[in-house]
C-alpha cells in the first residue's frame, strides 16, 4: 500500500532523513517510535507530501507521489492525516470541518456531504456534537472530529502524527478507541506515537527510528521485550520507566 524508498530530507544543514525505506502492506498497522528529532514525523509527513523529500520515491496506493505530473490534491484525498494539535478549523462547526473537503475536493453536493459528514461523526461517536465549534469541544472530542474529517473522504491510508500527545490522560482512551475501530475495519495505518499499550495491542509492526534512520523493526513483542540494537534498548528502557 505504501512504498517509500531511499528517502532523504534536509532542513538547511540538518540531515533529517538519511535514506529511509518504509513499506506498509494493505491493512497493516505500523507504529513508528523514536526519540524527538529522530525524523519520525518528517517521514510521516513525506508520505502525503506535506514535506517534499530531497531524494527517494514514494508510492501510495499505486500513485507515485514524487512524479511531477501526479495530482497531489487528488492523491491526498486517499491519504488521511491526523495531527498532534488537531488543527480543526475554528470558524466552522464540527460538521463544517468534516464536510469542507467532501464538497470542495470530492465534489459532493451539500445534502450528500452533510449525510456523509454526519455518518463520519457517528463513527467517532460525535454525531450529537455536529453543530458545535471546536472551541466548545474537549481535546479528545476535537481529535475525534479531526479523525472524522479524514475518514469521511474514505482514504486508503491513515497517517497519525502523535495523535494523543496533546491530550489530557483521561481523554486519550476515547481517541485510541476510535483508532482501534478503524484498525478492526481494516484501515492501513501509520502511527507516530508513544502509546505503548496501544502499540502492543494493535500494531502489526513497530519501527524504531533514530538520527534519521530506521534502526530496528519487528513485531511489537520483539521490539518491546527483546530489542536487538543498543539504541533501541536504551530508548525502550527510557520510555518504560515512565
Amino acid at each position: 500500500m505504501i512504498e517509500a524508498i531511499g528517502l532523504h530530507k534536509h532542513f538547511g544543514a540538518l540531515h533529517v532523513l538519511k535514506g529511509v525505506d518504509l513499506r506498509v502492506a494493505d491493512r497493516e498497522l505500523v507504529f513508528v517510535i523514536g526519540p524527538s528529532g529522530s525524523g519520525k514525523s518528517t517521514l510521516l509527513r513525506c508520505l502525503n507530501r506535506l514535506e517534499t523529500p530531497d531524494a527517494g520515491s514514494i508510492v501510495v496506493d499505486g500513485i507515485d507521489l514524487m512524479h511531477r505530473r501526479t495530482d497531489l490534491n487528488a492523491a491526498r484525498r486517499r491519504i488521511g492525516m491526523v495531527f498532534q494539535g488537531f488543527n480543526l478549523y475554528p470558524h466552522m462547526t464540527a460538521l463544517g470541518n468534516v464536510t469542507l473537503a467532501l464538497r470542495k475536493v470530492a465534489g459532493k453536493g451539500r445534502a450528500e456531504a452533510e449525510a456523509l459528514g454526519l455518518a463520519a461523526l457517528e463513527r467517532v461517536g460525535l454525531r450529537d456534537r455536529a453543530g458545535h465549534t471546536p472551541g466548545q469541544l474537549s481535546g479528545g472530542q476535537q481529535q475525534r472530529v479531526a479523525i472524522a474529517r479524514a475518514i469521511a473522504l474514505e482514504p486508503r491510508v491513515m497517517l497519525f502524527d502523535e495523535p494523543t500527545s496533546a491530550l489530557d490522560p483521561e481523554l486519550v482512551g476515547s481517541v485510541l478507541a476510535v483508532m482501534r475501530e478503524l484498525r478492526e475495519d481494516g484501515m492501513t495505518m501509520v502511527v507516530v506515537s508513544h502509546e505503548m499499550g496501544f502499540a502492543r495491542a494493535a500494531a502489526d509492526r513497530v519501527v524504531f527510528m533514530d538520527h534519521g534512520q530506521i534502526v530496528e523493526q519487528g513485531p511489537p513483542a520483539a521490539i518491546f521485550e527483546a530489542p536487538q540494537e543498543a539504541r533501541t534498548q536504551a530508548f525502550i528502557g527510557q520510555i518504560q520507566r515512565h
Partner: protein
Amino acid sequence: MTGWERFLDTFFNAKVMAKYWPDILHGMWVTIELAMLVVVTGIASGLALALLRAAGIRPLNWLMIFVVDALRALPPLVIIVLIYFGLPSAGLTPSGFVSTWAALALVLMAFSEEIFWAGITAVPRGQWEAARSTGLSYAQALFHVVLPQALRLTIPPLTSRTIAITKGTALGSVVAVSEILGQASSAVSNSYNPSPLILGAAAYLVLFIPVVVAGRWVETRFAWKK
C-alpha cells in the same frame, strides 16, 4: 464691543453661518462621496494585493513591498500634490477630486495590504496543513480556511486605520476639492470671518463621531476570543 462679544462675532457669527451653511452641507456630500470611494477601492485593492502576495511570486513580492513601504512612508498630502501637479506633465490631468481619491486609496491600499498580510501570516501553519492534507488546493485552503480566520484578526486594526485615512479627505482642500474644509476655507475668504470653519468642524464631528463609535463597537465585537 466687549472681548466676549468680539469672540462670538468672530467665530460664531450667526449671519455668516446662515449664509454659508448650504455650502458646508454640499461639502459634506463631497466628503462622504470621496470617503466612500477611498474606503471601497482602498480596502479592495489592499486585499487583492495581500492575496497576490500570498501566491508567493518572489520578484513580484519584492516590488510590492517596496511600493507599499513607499506609500506608507510618504505623507498623504505629498502624494496628492504629486498626482495633481505631477501627472499633467505626463499628459494626464486628473481633477483635484480624482487626485485626492487616488492618493488616499493608494495609502489605504498600502496599509490594508500590510494588515491583511499580517492576518494571513498569523493563521497557524497547522491550518494550512490540515486543509492541504484533505486535498484542498492552495487557493481553496486560502479562501475557505485561512482567509476567514485572517479577516477576523484584521478587523480591529483595519477599522482604526480606515478612519484615520478617511479623515485625510480634508487634504483635498489643497487641490481645490470642494469638500467640507475646502468649502469652509473659501467661505472664510469671502466673508472675512472664520465662523464657517466652526461649521466645518461641526460637520466633521457629525460625520465621523458615528463612524468612530461604530469602529469601537466593531473592535470589541471582533476582538479574538478563544
